[in-house]
């Protein structure tokens, strides 16, 4: 029988013990003696969240295709187990072998959201690895992070050895070969890290120094040694068709958030919404060919036995052959008992037709994400969606039998006025009115249900809004109240429902998103005072964070609420995301002027991503 790291009495008292036993179908088992490199791939959140992540699935498959590497998985132990592991000194282990990860060569973690930073420390702490990179020894694992937040890794600079900036498919082979070389000749941590800094996309935070001006902004950010590059170029897969994609995916016992085949149809987005980090850093838009997708869909359904397939991309409606792909999925899958779950599609005649084939119209809802209520504000954020699009789409849907609509908006966007906020419920009211105009009384199944959700805008690095100020928590709530009050004044208010988020966590997210390495001691103190699983409302403790900030002289005002100067040096400026700072400035000015920029298929706006040499920039028009 497979050995387990946790004893029976612990497994029998914790929630969902199957999170910790491994043994999932399609998981990879190797003999550790047969490999040179043991890699612990970690998603620093709970199992069900981490197991749903496509990026890890791609890297797990890619690394395990190598004969010399055994890549295993690690997720954050839930607090119930965390406490027991601490109490009994049980070191954190990898799921496949159940071996402690302290003995591994690499601990890799993905940074999908800022609120996972304390969970990184939890992983290292439970593993028994020094939290600070300066305190690690030669035989400690190399701690490497990647993912979207790696585009500003500075707030965690003291905790990690390497940062992989960009898409993992490209530079891992070079990095692993270099590691093997160093291991063969007698491993010296410093000389390995130094040489790793020469690999494209690899950033070694300990090899850079930062000096600051009196006002707290950066004076200079530079490598300590001449051979260490001053800029790190974000890595991008050039050809999506030939890029490594798993033919098998793991089947968790505990139901994951994504309990389905996830098929990535393209990377990047042509739209250029000015608040959206993914829309900028994943440029250029690169599509997979439809034949590759058909083959991958078939293979993945067969190897997993999933009864649902879903498409993954930032904007599926923009995929060039969506009609052909959907026809294929519907014809080939539905008959086999496989559901097709739809990605968020632009609501039009095509998408409604597809939806009516795969969903029960009366039970499902249609979704719009206008992000802003007024046309003025939508121009500011460059969201090319008009009132006519929304009312027209909703009217078509109502004719087709739908009566539920979901709306997603953001509050606290740059330059937002009370009028812009009020436009949110007004738009929802118009949609409700369209329902009552469209559907005759005798055909209605009660009222239509329009749900409005708002989140609070957080400015992110490498977006045109990276210079924008945030608001204090109280101001966000005031804005939510403006929306709520206006909603109650609407004629169709009984058909409207409004949800909004908490605002403390938004402020903290804002601090981390544009933070620098002076935040490291505060994050460490917060963890030591008991903060982790900050992304989970029930564990988020803002007071502990405020105490950690105060102790370390961290001003929220400086990181979040301040309007930044156009020529300020940002902590992430050393990263080259291909999208140039000049373009972002131009877009910031366009935003302030309410000027819309065309999408990449309409015309090139010269963002800089064309230099990569593939994708939408080079497609024949």
């Amino acid at each position, binding site marked *: *029988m*497979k050995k*387990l790291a946790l004893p*029976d*009495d612990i*497994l*029998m*008292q914790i929630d969902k*013990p*199957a999170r910790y*036993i491994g*043994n*999932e*179908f399609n998981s990879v088992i190797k003999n550790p003696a047969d490999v040179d490199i043991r890699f612990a791939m970690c998603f620093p959140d709970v199992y069900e969240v981490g197991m749903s992540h496509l990026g890890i699935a791609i890297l797990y498959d890619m690394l395990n295709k190598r004969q010399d590497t055994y890549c295993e998985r690690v997720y954050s132990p839930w607090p119930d187990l965390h406490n027991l592991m601490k109490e009994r000194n049980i070191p954190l282990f990898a799921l496949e072998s159940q071996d402690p990860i302290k003995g591994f060569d690499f601990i890799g973690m993905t940074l999908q959201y800022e609120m996972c930073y304390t969970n990184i420390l939890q992983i290292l702490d439970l593993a028994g690895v020094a939290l600070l990179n300066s305190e690690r020894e030669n035989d400690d694992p190399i701690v490497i992070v990647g993912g979207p937040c790696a585009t500003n890794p500075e707030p965690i600079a003291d905790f990690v050895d390497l940062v992989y900036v960009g898409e993992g498919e490209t530079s891992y082979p070079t990095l692993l070969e270099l590691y093997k070389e160093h291991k063969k000749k007698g491993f010296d941590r410093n000389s390995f890290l130094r040489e790793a800094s020469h690999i494209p996309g690899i950033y070694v935070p300990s090899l850079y120094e930062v000096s600051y001006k009196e006002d707290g902004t950066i004076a200079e950010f530079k490598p300590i040694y001449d051979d260490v590059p001053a800029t790190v170029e974000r890595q991008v897969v050039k050809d999506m068709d030939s890029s490594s994609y798993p033919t098998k995916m793991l*089947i968790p*016992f*505990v*139901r994951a958030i994504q*309990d389905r085949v996830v098929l990535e149809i393209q990377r990047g987005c042509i739209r250029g919404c000015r608040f959206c980090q993914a829309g900028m850093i994943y440029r250029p838009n690169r599509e997979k060919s439809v034949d590759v997708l058909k083959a991958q869909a078939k293979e993945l359904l*067969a*190897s*997993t*036995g*999933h*009864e649902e397939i879903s498409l993954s991309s930032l904007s599926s409606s923009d995929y060039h052959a969506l009609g052909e792909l959907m026809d294929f999925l519907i014809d080939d899958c539905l008959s086999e*008992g496989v*559901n097709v779950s739809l990605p968020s599609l632009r609501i039009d005649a095509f998408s409604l037709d597809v939806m009516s084939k795969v*969903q*029960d119209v009366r*039970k499902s809802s249609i979704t719009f994400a206008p992000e802003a209520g007024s046309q003025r504000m939508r121009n500011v954020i460059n969201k090319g969606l008009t009132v006519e699009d929304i009312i027209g789409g909703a009217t078509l849907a109502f004719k087709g039998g739908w009566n539920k609509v979901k709306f997603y908006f953001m509050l606290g966007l740059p330059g937002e006025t009370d009028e812009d906020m009020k436009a949110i419920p007004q738009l929802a009211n118009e949609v409700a009115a369209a329902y009552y105009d469209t559907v005759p009384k005798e055909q209605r199944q009660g009222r239509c249900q329009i749900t409005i959700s708002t989140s609070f805008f957080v400015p992110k690095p490498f977006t045109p809004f990276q210079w924008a100020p945030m608001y204090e928590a109280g101001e966000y709530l005031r804005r939510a109240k403006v929306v709520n009050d206006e909603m109650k004044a609407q004629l169709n208010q009984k058909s409207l429902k409004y949800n909004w988020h908490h605002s403390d966590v938004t402020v903290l997210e804002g601090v981390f998103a544009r933070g620098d390495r002076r935040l490291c001691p505060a994050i460490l103190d917060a963890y030591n005072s008991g903060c982790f699983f900050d992304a989970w409302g029930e564990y988020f403790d803002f007071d502990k964070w405020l105490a950690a900030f105060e102790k370390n002289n961290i001003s929220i005002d400086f990181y979040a609420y301040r309007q930044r100067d156009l020529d300020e040096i940002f902590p992430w400026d050393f990263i080259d995301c291909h999208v140039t700072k000049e373009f972002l400035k131009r877009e910031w000015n366009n935003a302030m002027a309410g000027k819309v920029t065309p999408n990449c298929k309409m015309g090139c706006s010269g963002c800089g991503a064309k230099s990569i040499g593939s994708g939408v920039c080079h497609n024949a028009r």
Partner: protein
Amino acid sequence: MRVRVKFEKTGIMRYVGHLDLMRFFQKAVKRANLPIRYSEGFNPHQIMSFAAPLGVGLTSTGEYMDIDLKQEVSSKEGLESLNQNMVEGLAITGFKYLPDDAEKCMSAVTAASYMVTYKNPKDDACYIDNIIDLKEKFFDEAASINIVKKTKKGERELDLKPLIYRFNLEVKDNVPVYDLLLSSGSTDNIKPELVIKAFHEYLGLPEFDELSLDIQRVDMYTGEPESFVSLGEIGDEH
């Protein structure tokens, strides 16, 4: 046509709960390419049902699920293709076609047999020298075994004696091993923990901890006490 699949759930799979196991089998049947029948409607689901659920922490050599197939697959092929899609701790041991009038496994179960012992070889129960004599007094010679059973609605008095069809005990390497056959199913479902707890109380042992027991369900039965038939004996291989 309906097929009864018999399987084992052992080792580390004891930590996987019933709902998770059901989801595992839905996907395994799909991977095995068995021509399973789906229900009608917008959310079609496989026609698949399980006999009595097994609690987390228990192992079993006699678990059953019934599935409905659109076409016949030979028992050998069905068993092999399912086994290729199992993980460590799950093994398919039977694949039999049911007669048309066979009751579904879920409602058919009337009894289950268990092998129960102690996880800790130094458990208090291992130090009672005359435990076999005491068992005879507790069970074989008793006219009734009255206990208080906690239910959702409160507590109720219950006589265990007529619901225990077999209660054998032997001591192996100083550790008591129980062989039980208990009433099971939708009415009078008796868990082995309940029986051992009553026995512990009779023995005068301190606080009973059900997690101290290592419980294996051996098999499940249908029919009446005088003529129990294993769920796995019903039907034929094709």
